[in-house]
């Protein structure tokens, strides 16, 4: 029987053999990008401490990294710190007196003490300041990083305050996302780095979605293993069977799923899915709380009015668009939902087999209790199913580390996993090559 309610999740035998969405002329998405190949993919990059050390240098110290949103810097003097533990780096991001967003190494020039922290140096903090004052010896810095005060300056030797500012970190913003780059000189400016596919989202009304639910998890897996879980939907019917609904018709782990569109652009990737469009389902196939809140896994059913055109989304123009999943290399994912909200995931490696995961849900602010509860139920749903994803990670990392297999088959729906590991390998190879050629410069 075809499940009549969800075009994306049919169960009929016929549907199993019929492609539901148009594929590239090559017949599969993977073969449309012949450089990917179709062979087994090695996952040794996710279990090796040595490879992790290379990734830190080759990728995380060279790529543009998203550390937050401009909404966290509402006025001149606003600041936040961002801990990048795997990089042994704390970044201080602030909006200076001219409104410019700047980033610095969060380290005092005097004796290297962490400059801005609150309570404990390992925790992130934010606020508003006219200047930054080191807790240790009282040195002060302007919002633009200039050193403005040295306590008992006459006790120093040949000290020139104007040469003792904070160490700047390359920083730029795009569509309200704040990025930093730890390289001495980034290989590309941010807009070039993001490229045409991601860049096309520039005018999307991210700035209207200022109501934020933020989540953090410390996971026992390589950072890439979790990214892999969120760049394919093949796992949804088996792992998240309950997500589909309370009835046997909805809850069939053998449902075949197919995403509508995949696209690669440089190191970045995206996938479009049709989503479940639960707002079109009859009540008997819904959980009571879904019907009560008119909300759930793909967000509140009653979408805010965002205007007629949404730049960059649904790039293939599918009729029943549900979700766009943009994977911005190396560790940012932007999920844009048809119902007018978006989610970001960020994955920060802390060792070869651990990482910190950050998930942020962004809504146009609720105007009343009913809208607040719709947002709350979407945020609850994110965590309930996210725990299944995080819980499974442990097992995947253990399985990979067991070494019974080192190469794995990936299907056409897992094309982004294939592209991601290939891209990581390419960046590491290029770094190793450059280092061999010019060891003193790396």
């Amino acid at each position, binding site marked *: 029987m075809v499940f009549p309610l969800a075009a994306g999740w049919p169960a009929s035998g016929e549907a199993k053999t019929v492609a539901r969405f148009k594929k590239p002329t090559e017949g599969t998405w993977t073969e449309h990008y012949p450089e990917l190949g179709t062979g087994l993919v090695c996952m040794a990059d996710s279990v090796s401490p040595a490879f992790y050390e290379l990734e830190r240098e080759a990728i995380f110290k060279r790529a543009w990294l998203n550390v937050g949103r401009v909404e966290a810097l509402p006025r001149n003097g606003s600041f936040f710190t961002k801990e990048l533990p795997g990089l042994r780096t704390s970044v201080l991001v602030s909006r200076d007196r001219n409104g410019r967003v700047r980033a610095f190494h969060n380290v005092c020039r005097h004796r290297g003490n962490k400059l801005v922290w609150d309570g404990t140096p390992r925790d992130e903090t934010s606020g508003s300041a006219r200047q930054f004052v080191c807790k240790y010896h009282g040195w002060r810095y302007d919002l633009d990083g200039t050193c403005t005060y040295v306590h008992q300056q006459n006790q120093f030797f040949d000290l020139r305050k104007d040469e003792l500012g904070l160490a700047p970190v390359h920083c730029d913003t795009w569509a309200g996302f704040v990025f930093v780059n730890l390289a001495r000189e980034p290989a590309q400016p941010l807009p070039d780095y993001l490229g045409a596919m991601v860049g096309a989202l520039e005018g999307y009304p991210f700035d209207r979605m200022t109501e*934020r*639910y933020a989540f953090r998890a410390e996971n026992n897996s390589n950072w890439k293993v979790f990214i892999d879980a969120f760049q394919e939907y093949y796992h949804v019917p088996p792992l998240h069977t309950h997500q589909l609904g309370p009835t046997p018709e909805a809850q069939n782990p053998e449902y075949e799923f197919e995403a509508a569109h995949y696209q690669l652009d440089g190191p970045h990737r995206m996938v479009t899915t049709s989503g479940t469009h639960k707002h079109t389902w009859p009540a008997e196939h819904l959980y009571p*709380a879904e019907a009560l809140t008119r909300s759930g896994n793909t967000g509140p059913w009653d979408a805010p009015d965002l205007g007629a055109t949404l730049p960059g989304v649904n790039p293939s123009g599918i009729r029943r668009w549900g979700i766009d999943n943009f994977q911005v290399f190396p560790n940012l994912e932007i999920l844009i939902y048809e119902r007018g909200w978006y989610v970001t995931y960020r994955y920060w490696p802390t060792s070869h087999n651990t990482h910190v995961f950050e998930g942020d849900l962004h809504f146009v602010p*609720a105007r009343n*209790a009913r809208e*607040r509860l719709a947002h709350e139920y979407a945020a609850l749903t994110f965590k309930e199913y996210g*725990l299944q994803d995080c819980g499974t990670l*442990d097992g995947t990392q253990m399985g990979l580390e067991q070494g019974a297999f080192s190469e794995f088959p990936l299907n056409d729906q897992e094309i982004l996993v294939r592209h991601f590991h290939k891209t990581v390998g390419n960046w590491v190879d290029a770094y190793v090559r450059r280092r061999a050629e010019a060891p003193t410069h790396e």
Partner: protein
Amino acid sequence: MSDSLLPPAFAALEPYAGIWCLATEPERWAQRLRSSMREMQAFYDALFPRAEEAIAYCDRFPLDDMPADAERLLQLLHSLLMVSYAVEVWKQPEVINGGSARIDRIREPRP
């Protein structure tokens, strides 16, 4: 002065207010994990049939200027959604196949 926490129209829900009027998700999550299914089912059965009425009551006030009793009713509705996953979906307090994973909500809009 009365000791009631909720608006008078919802006095029947007072027995649950002392337990489930919790302002933040971490508090509600912790309460779910230390509650039995019998306790959560009773709370769910008492509030769910009146949820529409309770939402309509809360909607009489702006979110940033709610009387204390209405705000507590809204907290109770948040807790209803929290237990709904245990009651409707998992049939147990914990997520099925959640392993040892933990996801902390570190920021949320208030109230």
